[in-house]
């Protein structure tokens, strides 16, 4: 029997009238009010996300730092306790097992936050490739993200002024909460790890001022911010360099030449590029494919991410996306599409 999992906030979502969908085995909210409204709340004020489906894996013990050094593309010895960093788990072929955030509590204690869909795979991969103690604590933890220009001030009102001092990619422990200044929207804010039994209390406090947002808004926000979504823009077959993630995998050595790159596309016509649509050159030859695409609310523009073969991806020129048999013009652009004002 297949049992759909729920987060501790499931009943809150239903009370708020959310449309629910299955995502990575969980019943998750797609939207509460509307995708555009929720997206704009995050860009202009603050939005609140239940991301409890994300996985939490502890790597601890005297071998922990060595294990992270071996398994994660970033060097953990360069970070202090209380710092987090984005990085990748790579397989033997250099393909991306997952993109993760690693939180360094000490050289003997690390928390890895993994994509929900990769939780078992990542746990097995980490466990079987290191000598540290590895524990999947995902079922004990919920996670609430508060994002937007007002997110930090709102959080400070409820959790105290000490959160104001957390630097970008820093984190603190406050009682049984782990509060990290990270996110997946392109805005300032926090991702807060909270024990399941306290998730509803925290949600209720923060949702007084931050608008509940669903997975739909989370996806359009991260796309505007040029962030990859595992399973769409990156997978076991993609390597960090072609995905534009070489910056966090400097020790990664490419064998052979890079044949394609992940680029941004700005649609020039009225059509919207969607995942798996073909990208063509002027003569109609297929030179790549779309991995993510939508018309985003903030930019009010159809944008996409696509793998395009070299050398076509290297010139910022016009390509075409095949939409229901028609070739619609698109401009290759650098990622991200949106960068918040500092």
């Amino acid at each position, binding site marked *: 029997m297949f049992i759909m999992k729920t987060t501790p906030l499931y009943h809150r979502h239903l009370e708020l009238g959310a*449309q629910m969908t299955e995502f990575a085995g969980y019943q998750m909210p797609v939207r509460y009010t509307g995708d555009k409204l929720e997206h704009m709340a995050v860009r202009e004020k603050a939005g609140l996300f239940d991301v409890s489906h994300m996985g939490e894996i502890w790597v601890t013990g005297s071998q922990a730092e060595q294990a992270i050094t071996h398994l994660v593309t970033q060097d953990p010895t360069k970070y202090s306790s209380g710092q987090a960093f984005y990085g990748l788990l790579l397989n033997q072929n250099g393909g991306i097992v997952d993109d993760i955030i690693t939180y360094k509590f000490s050289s003997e204690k690390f928390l890895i936050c993994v994509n929900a869909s990769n939780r078992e795979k990542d746990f097995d991969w980490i466990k079987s490739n290191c000598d540290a103690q590895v524990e999947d604590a995902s079922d004990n933890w919920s996670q609430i993200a508060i994002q937007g220009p007002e997110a930090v001030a709102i959080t400070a009102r409820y959790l105290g002024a000490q959160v104001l001092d957390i630097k970008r990619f820093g984190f603190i422990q406050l009682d049984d909460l782990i509060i990290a200044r990270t996110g997946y929207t392109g805005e300032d804010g926090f991702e807060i790890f909270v024990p399941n039994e306290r998730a509803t209390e925290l949600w209720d406090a923060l949702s007084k001022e931050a608008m509940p947002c669903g997975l739909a808004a989370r996806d359009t926000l991260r796309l505007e911010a040029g962030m990859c979504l595992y399973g769409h823009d990156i997978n076991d077959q993609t390597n960090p360099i072609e995905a534009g993630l070489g910056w966090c995998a400097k020790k990664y050595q490419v064998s052979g030449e890079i044949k394609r790159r992940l680029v941004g596309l700005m649609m020039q016509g009225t059509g919207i590029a969607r995942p798996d649509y073909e990208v063509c050159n002027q003569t109609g030859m297929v030179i790549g494919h779309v991995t993510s695409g939508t018309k985003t609310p903030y930019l009010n523009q159809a944008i996409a991410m696509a793998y395009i073969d070299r050398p076509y991806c290297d010139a910022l020129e016009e390509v075409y996306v095949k939409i229901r048999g028609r070739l619609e013009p698109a401009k290759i652009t650098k990622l991200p599409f949106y960068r918040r004002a500092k």
Partner: protein
Amino acid sequence: MIYFTKEHEWALVEDNVATIGITNHAQHSLGDVVYLELPEIGKKLEKDKIFGVVESVKAVSDLFSPVSGTVTQSNHNLVQSPEWVNQDCMGKAWMIKVALDSPSELSSLMSQEDYDKYLKEEIK
């Protein structure tokens, strides 16, 4: 008379012309509609075949014609303002008007009552 399809289109038939749109259930499932493709006047449509496309922020969905016939009007204003689908799906977000080939086809569509029952079943 108003008729409904299992794909959540509605067809309001007056004098052998069907006005066609999508239902409240459809617009709600789609979320914010951002793009539409509708056929030109004079286009021949076949029952249950694709006549256009509706796209929301999250989804692309084909539109299926409830009837066979010829397009007599296409709502260009709606193409310019796709958000009307969310605001008034049974009113100003009508999509096309079709002169029916064979009114007998209508008997295979659902009445309002049947459609309401169908929705309850589908949501269950």
